[in-house]
Structure formats: structure tokens, C-alpha cells
């Protein structure tokens, strides 16, 4: 050990160091509490949502006869009748139509159990009567009730019968809406940003426009819904509830965000690069196209994707343009009525049946997964197109 002398002594140093440390810990604890809440939220969603990914099925005897066509319920005895999903029973005639060889035979098939049975095996509160409960217990022992992966959730639309309700039409609705939003907002937004940043003269008028674009980015989204209702539906007669009107409304909302972030991306390209181009006698368009855009593209893409991710999670403006409708069948084009993921989640969250609670959480998980993957794509694109200089 060397001798510790006073040569490097500064009177307040201890106190200064201590203040620095305290501040560091205050900031760190803010981060920790934010992470803590995020973790609680995710944990709770997964806890509530994961049961929705399995569903109870009952192995049962079905007699495929002519009666079944007019009255599918008749194919079951009263025991199974009370625990099998009505929606599934109603699908039997179609099953017979699709496979005529079934006609006149007796088959053992896995039938979808109704919501109460499902909730009972998952250990959730349920409304099974004692008699039904006994039947289910017996079947559980025999192994003729099983929890299987819930394909229905991913392959059907909404339903008033909880075990038959799925997220499919909402996913499709969201994708179609997003497609419309993207097609409109991304090119218009990016081109507006290029014009404002690279071509527009810097005068009072463009400054006024820029300030207002910044203001638009801060407008509550529900107002865009009202605007969409007034302009697109009432004035232009775009079909209500359609992905087209929803997409256009969201495009209005995303536009300012895309413009602002694209402008920032263009601004971050050093002015010396443009000067170099001008010094060589290049036109503004050549400089922008070949030197400025490649450098700002990652930033523009990231900004656009984040704006779109925000749009996909948006509920309020879409409710106003009618995208909260009950939509059992997925839209096949952008003019048919559709619903979107957040609206579906919102609808389910207000349903009285117990099973919709887990569907709500599962819907949130699906939405979060899609949002996270979009952000992942944004990060990937930014890395991929990043040019070093």
C-alpha cells in the first residue's frame, strides 16, 4: 500500500460523490419499479390467458341418421346433451354433408364440451349442476374428457356461445385494416416528410404547416374517429365497419407520427452529405434519392412500423366507425364488416360468461405478441439497412 497523502484531497469530494450515488439510485429505482409493473402485468396476462389456449373435449357416440339433419340435438342422450357444446352439435349436419360415408354409421368422436365443463376442469368457477358434475367426474376417470389445444380460438370468429368464440375474424380484420393504413399512411407520410425536409422553402407557411403536423400527432385518437365518421362514412359513403374506413381513419392518425419521425430521420443525415452533392453539381433529387434516403431509411421504417403498431392497438376511433360490430365470420375483403383485435378484446371484457375472461386475456396476449414482433421487425430492419459513416 502506498502512503495515502492529502495531495489529491478535495474538501467536498465525499459529499459530491455521495450525491451522485444517491441520484444514480433514484434513477435506477425508477427503472426497477417500471420493470416491476411491466412484469406484474405480463405475468397476470399470461396467468389469466394461457388456459384459453386449451379447451375440453368429450369423447362421445354420435349416430349419423336422417333425423340429425333436421334436429342435431336428437343424436345425444340427455347426459351428453347437457355437457356438449350446442355450437358443436349444430355443426354435425355439415360434417355429415362433407363426408357422406358417415351416413347411417355410429361414430365415437371427440366433441367440444361446453364452457361450463371446460371451466370446471380448469378449476375456475362454473355453473354445472351436481348431476352434471358427477357425469364429468366419471368421464374424467374413464379418460373420455380431455383438454386439447384450442384450435377454435384461432380458426373461428366471435360467437355468443363462449366455447365457440374465437379471435380469427378479429385478427383478419386487424390485418386488413393495417394493410389499408399502411398503404395510405406510409407512402404519403414519407413523401410529405421528404418534401418538407428537403424541398420546401423555409418560410412562414411551411413553418405553420410543420407546427400543425406536430400538433396533430398529439390529438386524442377518438377525434380521428369522429373525423372518419364525418368524412369517410357520411360524406364519401364508405361502408361502415369495413376495414377500409377503419384503415383510412387510422391512416389519418398515423400520418403525423410517420411524418414527424421521417422528418427526424432525414434531419439526422448530416448536412455535409448534401453539400458534397451540391458541390458536385448533383440535383436535389439525385442527392435525396441516392445519398440521403439510404441513410434515413432505417429511421423512417422504424418510425412507420411504430406508428402502425400504435394503430393496430387503437380502439377508440375504430369503435366510432363501427368496427366493434359482432362479426362471426372473418371479412374476405376490405369492404365487408369486420372487427379488430382491440375491439374484440373490449367486447369480450364486457361479456358476463366466465369463459370470456380468459379469452380476453388470451386476446391481449395475441395482440401483444403481434406488437412485439412488429417492433422486432423494426429493430431488424434498422440493423439491416444501417449504413456506417
Amino acid at each position, binding site marked *: 500500500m502506498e502512503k495515502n497523502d492529502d495531495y489529491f484531497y478535495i474538501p467536498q469530494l465525499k459529499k459530491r460523490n455521495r450525491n451522485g450515488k444517491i441520484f444514480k439510485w433514484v434513477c435506477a429505482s425508477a427503472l426497477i419499479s417500471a420493470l416491476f409493473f411491466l412484469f406484474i402485468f405480463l405475468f397476470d396476462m399470461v396467468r389469466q390467458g394461457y388456459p384459453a389456449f386449451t379447451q375440453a373435449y368429450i369423447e362421445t357416440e354420435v349416430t349419423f341418421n336422417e333425423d340429425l339433419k333436421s334436429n342435431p340435438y336428437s343424436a345425444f342422450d340427455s347426459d351428453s346433451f347437457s355437457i356438449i357444446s350446442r355450437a358443436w352439435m349444430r355443426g354435425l349436419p355439415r360434417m355429415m354433408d362433407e363426408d357422406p360415408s358417415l351416413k347411417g354409421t355410429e361414430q365415437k368422436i371427440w366433441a367440444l364440451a361446453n364452457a361450463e365443463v371446460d371451466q370446471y376442469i380448469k378449476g375456475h368457477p362454473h355453473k354445472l349442476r351436481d348431476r352434471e358434475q358427477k357425469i364429468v367426474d366419471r368421464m374424467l376417470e374413464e379418460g373420455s374428457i380431455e383438454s386439447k389445444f384450442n384450435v377454435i380460438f384461432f380458426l373461428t370468429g366471435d360467437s355468443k356461445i363462449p366455447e365457440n368464440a374465437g379471435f380469427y375474424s378479429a385478427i383478419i380484420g386487424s390485418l386488413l385494416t393495417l394493410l389499408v393504413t399502411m398503404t395510405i399512411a406510409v407512402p404519403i407520410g414519407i413523401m410529405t416528410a421528404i418534401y418538407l425536409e428537403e424541398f420546401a422553402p423555409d418560410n412562414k407557411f411551411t413553418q405553420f404547416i410543420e407546427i400543425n403536423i406536430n400538433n396533430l400527432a398529439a390529438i386524442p385518437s377518438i377525434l380521428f374517429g369522429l373525423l372518419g365518421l364525418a368524412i369517410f362514412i357520411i360524406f364519401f359513403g364508405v361502408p361502415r365497419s369495413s376495414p377500409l374506413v377503419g384503415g383510412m381513419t387510422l391512416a389519418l392518425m398515423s400520418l403525423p407520427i410517420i411524418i414527424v419521425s421521417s422528418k427526424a430521420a432525414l434531419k439526422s443525415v448530416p448536412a455535409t452529405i448534401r453539400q458534397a*452533392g*451540391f458541390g458536385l453539381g448533383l440535383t436535389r433529387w439525385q442527392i435525396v434519392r441516392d445519398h440521403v434516403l439510404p441513410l434515413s431509411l432505417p429511421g423512417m421504417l422504424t418510425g412507420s412500423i411504430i406508428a402502425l403498431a400504435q394503430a393496430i392497438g387503437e380502439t377508440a376511433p375504430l369503435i366510432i366507425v363501427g368496427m366493434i360490430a359482432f362479426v362471426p365470420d372473418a371479412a374476405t375483403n376490405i369492404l365487408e364488416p369486420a372487427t379488430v383485435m382491440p375491439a374484440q378484446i373490449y367486447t369480450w371484457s364486457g361479456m358476463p360468461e366466465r369463459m370470456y375472461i380468459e379469452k380476453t386475456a388470451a386476446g391481449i396476449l395475441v395482440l401483444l405478441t403481434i406488437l412485439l414482433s412488429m417492433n422486432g421487425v423494426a429493430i431488424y430492419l434498422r440493423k439491416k439497412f444501417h449504413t456506417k459513416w
Partner: protein
Amino acid sequence: MEQQNININVAKREKDNKDLRVKVEARDLDLWYSDNHALRNINMDIYEKKITSFIGASGCGKSTFLRCLNRMNDLISDVTIKGKISVDGHNIYAPGVDEVAVRKKIGMVFQQPNPFPKSIYENVAYAPLMHDIVKKGSDCDELVENSLKGAGLWEEVKDKLKEPGTALSGGQQQRLCIARTIAVKPDIILMDEPTSALDPISTQTIESLMLSLKEQFTIIVVTHNMQQATRVADYTAFFHLGEIIEYNETEQIFINPQVSKTEQYITGQFG
């Protein structure tokens, strides 16, 4: 020591000071940045295939005048320019003259090396391709090679033309910028403090490069380095508060200044 240097230069220049031809003429040039009168009544003849340097204290308008010569000031909003600048007798500010065409004839090299974030090859090839000076292929390769040779960079980069120009050293980047400029085949090259961001060795390289380039190009250089002006410039203009105080052969300016302000500046009494 400095005196000696200048004497050598004088001897060297005597030889090539014959048959002068005026390349650029500035007449009654005034410039305002909104209401800041930055250039006052500039009248100047700049000679072909000579190096002319602009010296003067910071903020006296050297860069502003340089930017007038290839209409780079058009890019700044709220600039008013009065007067006339002609190149080979043609007014570059005449109505109908496209500033892009002016800048093709009058190239510019900046203070900070600013290669495009692209490969060395593309840095040189891009503008000639855009100007249709060459087509893609062997012609273009040849032009790139000649330009890089002209800028004295070829030997250092011939094996890594595909690497980014931004990965070179500062001095190499500046030579790349010069190569890029001469590839467009301008008549005049403007240089705004081209070595002020460089180390002494790179500065020396660029200076000898300038001396070799004046065989083909008229070079106008802004510099804060008085030795540099004496080393490279045939003519020197001293700017003060937006005016040209004195403009003459470099040795006259440094040995025998006619105006006391010039003398004060070159002897370091202000600036």
C-alpha cells in the same frame, strides 16, 4: 526563414506568370444575409490555371464569396445577391442559368472531408455517372482510376475500392473528395479551408496535390494558414469586413503589402 521560403517561391513563379487569362470576373458584387451586408462591392479577376487564395480574419466573408462563385449561396434562404460573376465571360447569375450546371463546371471541396457513406469507387463514380460523363463499365473504371491517381490516392486504395470511403483517414478522405471533384471534370475547383481539419503531413500532401492540379484546373482556396498561402497560391486576396482590401500576386501581398491593414493581418496584429 519565412522570408527565404517566399523568395524561393517568387523565383519559381516568375516562370509561369506569362500569358495570363482571366477565368472568373466578379463585378460590383454585394451580398446580404437578410440584413447583414456580408460582401461589399467585390471586384476581382481570377486567372486561369492559377491558384488564388483568400485570406482574412474570421467572419470577413471569404467563404461567402467562395460560395457565390458556384452559387452555393442559393441554398441558403434569405440571401440577396447584387452584381455579376462571369466565368469565361458568361454570367453565372444570368436568368435561365441552372445553378446545377454552374456547379458541374465549378466544383467544391469542403473544410470537413465529407465522402458519401458509400464505397470508394462509388464516391468517385457517382457524379460522373449522373452527369453522363461516362457509362457504367470499363470507361467508368478508367475514370475512377485516373481521378484517384490525379488526387494521389490510387496507390493507397487500389486494392480496396469496394470499402467504404468513410473508413479512410482524414487526409485520405479529403483526397477522395478531391478525386470525386475532378472526376466531374470541372474548370474551377473551389476549396474552403481544405486542410484545416488535417495533420501537417496530410496538409503537405494536399498542398503538393494542389500544385499539380493547377496544370488543369483553376483553383481558388480559402485558408487561415498564411504559410499555406505563400506555399501554394499565385495570387492572394485579403478580405476584411466583407471587402477586398488588397489583391495581388502572393509575394507582393506578403513582402510588400500596399495597405496597412494587410500588413497588420499578415504580421499577426489581428485576426
